[in-house]
């Protein structure tokens, strides 16, 4: 059913009995033209664009649990394209462009809210670095504004401007950035893909690969073997583990990232704010809860839960930035398994193994990338060549030296 004012009206007068399931929970077929492993945002978006842009309809998304049970349903929903390096800017800006038309395209309310993101700076060198990044963005046609202290104060008067160690001197603002509803994005892509004939198969864990010599010709799953000449991996935190079954050793470590939400309060925070002197970021959900987080825990983990030192560190960051949140009660905290790459940037590429394609290394920033990641991964799978916007995200860049290290911290995943 297409969602529209008429479908709302029809259901309103018929006791809401006309609604049909948003997408088909399919049983796996023995073979497809392509399968995507991982039913997170990236896997579902890839399937949708494979069907819509490349005419591949006999395809499936295989998810070991339920769709959106991984990081897609655990993130803090920030979308932005305020990157500084040439390999990154066009890709994230393409993602932002897709976000801006996503609801119309999917016929689904993904609650994209362009409320803006403000990265605060607290020193002269940091101002210079932000000015440089803002200029790089503007040279690529991305919106960026450098605000001084008084402009920030007019926008967010409740911040602690005179922190003795980290006074707020201003911020870099991207007005087109904001948030989107994470589950809505997962369900929106699932529904749109399903309508184009894509099978979404849940409770179907990939446990191995079917080989014909070197070539990969399908997958072994907990629901039997499935043949497909093209297999795309989009399993985020489990990338090393699944790629290992195919004999690949990746430039990735899995780390845990935590996030938190407070009790709901009246509207307080109008946009997304990041603290520049520690690692803390915050926004307010439409239900009123303050959603915030900070650094990864810093050690390898598949546990989907973190430890107290980071909880303390995040809360200290929050208190330094806006002391008025100190009396709020925490409602929930949780963790997700991040595929931290060695330069902090993702991989969308073919692999040395024919038939196998890789989408990985999203670190803690892959939600914003969901539309463009799906778009570019679908392109790589369908055409066997990289999409121009993602051409820098090669798997072999670690061997050739073409790293994309936004933070400039080197091959140390827990520092990205």
């Amino acid at each position, binding site marked *: 059913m297409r969602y529209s004012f008429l479908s709302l009206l029809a259901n309103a007068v018929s006791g809401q009995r006309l609604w049909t399931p948003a997408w088909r929970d399919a049983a796996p077929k023995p073979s497809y033209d392509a399968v995507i492993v991982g039913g997170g945002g990236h896997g579902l978006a890839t399937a949708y664009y494979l069907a819509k842009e490349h005419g591949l309809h006999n395809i499936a998304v295989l998810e070991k649990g339920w769709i959106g049970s991984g990081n897609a349903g655990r993130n803090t929903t920030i979308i932005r394209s305020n990157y500084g390096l040439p390999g990154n800017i066009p890709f994230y800006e393409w993602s932002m462009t897709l976000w801006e038309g996503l609801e119309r395209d999917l016929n689904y309310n993904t609650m994209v809210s362009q409320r803006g993101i403000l990265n605060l700076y607290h020193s002269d060198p940091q101002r210079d670095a932000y000015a440089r990044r803002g200029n790089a963005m503007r040279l690529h046609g991305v919106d960026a504004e450098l605000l001084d202290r008084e402009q920030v104060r007019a926008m967010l008067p409740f911040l602690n401007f005179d922190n003795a160690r980290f006074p707020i001197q201003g911020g870099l603002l991207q007005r087109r950035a904001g948030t989107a509803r994470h589950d809505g994005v997962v369900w929106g892509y699932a529904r749109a893909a399903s309508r184009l004939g894509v099978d979404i198969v849940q409770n179907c864990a990939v446990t191995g690969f079917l080989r014909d010599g070197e070539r990969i010709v399908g997958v072994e799953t907990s629901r039997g073997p499935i043949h497909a000449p093209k297999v795309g991996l989009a399993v985020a935190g*489990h990338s*090393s*583990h699944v790629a*290992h079954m195919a004999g690949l*050793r*990746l*430039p*990735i*470590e*899995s780390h845990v990232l935590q996030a938190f939400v407070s009790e709901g309060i009246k509207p307080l925070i109008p946009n997304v704010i990041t603290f520049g002197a520690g690692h803390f970021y915050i926004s307010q959900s439409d239900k009123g809860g303050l959603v915030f987080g900070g650094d990864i825990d*810093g*050690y*390898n*983990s*598949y*546990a989907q839960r973190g*430890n*107290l*030192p980071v909880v*303390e560190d995040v809360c200290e960051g929050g208190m330094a930035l806006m002391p008025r949140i100190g009396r709020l009660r925490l409602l929930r905290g949780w963790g997700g398994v991040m595929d931290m790459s*060695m330069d902090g940037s993702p991989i969308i590429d073919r692999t040395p193994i024919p038939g196998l394609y890789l989408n990985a290394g999203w670190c803690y920033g892959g939600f914003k990338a969901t539309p463009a990641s799906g778009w570019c991964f679908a392109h790589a799978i369908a055409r066997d060549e990289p999409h121009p916007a993602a051409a820098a995200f090669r798997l072999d860049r*670690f*061997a050739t030296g073409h790293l994309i290290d936004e933070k400039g911290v080197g*091959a*140390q*995943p*827990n520092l990205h």
Partner: protein
Amino acid sequence: MRIPCPYCGPRDAHEFTCLGDATLTRPDPAAPDAASAFHDYVYRRDNPAGPHRELWYHGGGCRSWLEVTRDTRTHAITDARFAADRSSAAQGTEDRP
């Protein structure tokens, strides 16, 4: 998470910094395959879901480097020893990758 430092006893994880995988060995820069061996050493990781040997620095305590064996699925720590002992053992008879 508490790490049982062999010198200080069980201490809270916030006193430590994690460097990562302890099983990597620096390749011979003079070897003919040095470029690809260094690519493996610097960038590629096994990243196991299960027991993981890793290096931790006890900066908030005795300032020793430790080799800790920790299950990445549960965070349970089964072994912690001085990294210095490990390297002298590695030069001896003990078999290490």
